């Protein structure tokens, strides 16, 4: 019988090694896989490539990742630190120790979707003619310059949902979904932490993301953001 539950955070993050590309969902505190992020911080993996909309909240929950220089590169739409003083990751970026691929949030999302949908690259007008288009192929469509953006894929994805079942099916509350579904689809191993586990399979009209995209379910009731 299919049952994707794992019993512990360490089991949930098993297989993440030095050099892993990890996608992390969450926006404004909603859908943030806090337990998984904290578990990652407690591991000793290094040279991580992180795909995350805003680096800031990774530092909030896992400051040691940057203190100990364990992140090698980040793809994101925001890497400005919260404070006036530069954060650890801003310092590392300035020192050339941390590579940043900054994408408009829509290109970021669409690149991840493309990664999960078998689309290696697509054209978009967004960012054409701006600094963020530098070095990118440009082509006109319907008289409008567009740039070629490439897919992003991950080895692992972390996301959070309100409820899950043994198939890995997920139900999100409010704005929890955000980058979770596309990151799960774009990654080889998708790990979802859920506030509650349903012993009965979720009904079709409750499922926001099918369990076929989820490999592990961690029940983490109280600690989620």
């Amino acid at each position, binding site marked *: 019988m299919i049952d994707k539950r794992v019993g512990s955070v360490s089991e949930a993050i098993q297989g993440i090694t030095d050099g892993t590309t990890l996608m992390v969902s969450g926006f404004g505190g909603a859908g943030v896989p806090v337990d998984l992020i904290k578990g990652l911080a407690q591991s000793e993996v290094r040279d991580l490539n992180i795909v995350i909309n805003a680096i800031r909240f990774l530092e909030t929950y896992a400051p040691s990742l940057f203190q100990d220089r364990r992140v090698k590169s980040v793809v994101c739409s925001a890497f400005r630190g919260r404070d006036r003083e530069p954060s650890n990751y801003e310092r590392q970026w300035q020192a050339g120790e941390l590579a940043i691929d900054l994408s408009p949030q829509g290109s970021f999302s669409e690149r991840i979707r493309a990664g999960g949908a078998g689309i290696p690259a697509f054209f978009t007008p967004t960012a*054409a003619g701006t600094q963020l288009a530098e070095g990118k192929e440009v082509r006109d469509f319907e008289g409008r310059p567009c740039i070629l953006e490439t897919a992003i894929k991950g080895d692992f994805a972390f996301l959070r949902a309100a409820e899950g079942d043994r198939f890995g099916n997920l139900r999100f509350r409010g704005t929890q979904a955000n980058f979770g579904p596309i990151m799960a689809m774009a990654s080889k191993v998708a790990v979802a932490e859920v506030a509650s586990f349903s012993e009965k399979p979720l009904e079709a009209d409750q499922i926001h993301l099918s369990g076929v995209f989820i490999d592990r379910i961690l029940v983490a009731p109280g600690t989620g953001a």
Partner: protein
Amino acid sequence: MFKPLNRNQMAWRAAQDLEEGTVVNLGMGMPVLAASYAPFGREIIFQSENGIIGAGPEASENERDPDLVDASSRFVTLAPGAALIESAASFAMIRGGHIDVTMLGGFEVASNGDLANWDMQVPNKGQLVGGAMDLAFGAGEVRVIMQHQTKDGSPRLLNACRLPLTAPRCVTRIYTDLAVVDVEENGFLVREMLQGMTQEDLQSRTEAPLAFARDIEPLTPPDL
């Protein structure tokens, strides 16, 4: 003498132009304030790029739900008929032209409609683009709410942007603390201006040349 609008009044003025049934995305800061000042009874659908189509007012203390936030990370409510979506669908909506109007903050707007609102080039600080470019490129109309000048008195309505562009030739209207300015084929056209202000007063605070509408109106917000 004249009294510049405060932030609430600027948001109020911008909100008056939002029409019944339109789909609107509001950027952080003053733009998101505008939702509170939309004329009573007018149904406007506020999209928030983290996944809300139909955001309602900010949540009161005891309505707060940590799983329901808007793109400004505020706790919000849902308006009747609201839908919730994930990020790729949300940006497909934005980039596919399904937002009628976006109102964004701005650092600089050029007289050809170029917008700079994402990178202030602060030394030693990282960048944050978020959804600004997607909105500026994808929305049907881009309106900007910003102070007419910087804190140190430099103009923000320019002949050409100095800061990195968010998108070229996208802005249609600017709401400042002094005026309402449209971006027309030939450049800036002032539609409304504070009472007590002269055309020279406004031009002296603006780098690019201003034209003034024949039927220019006084900018008279309520006390807010």
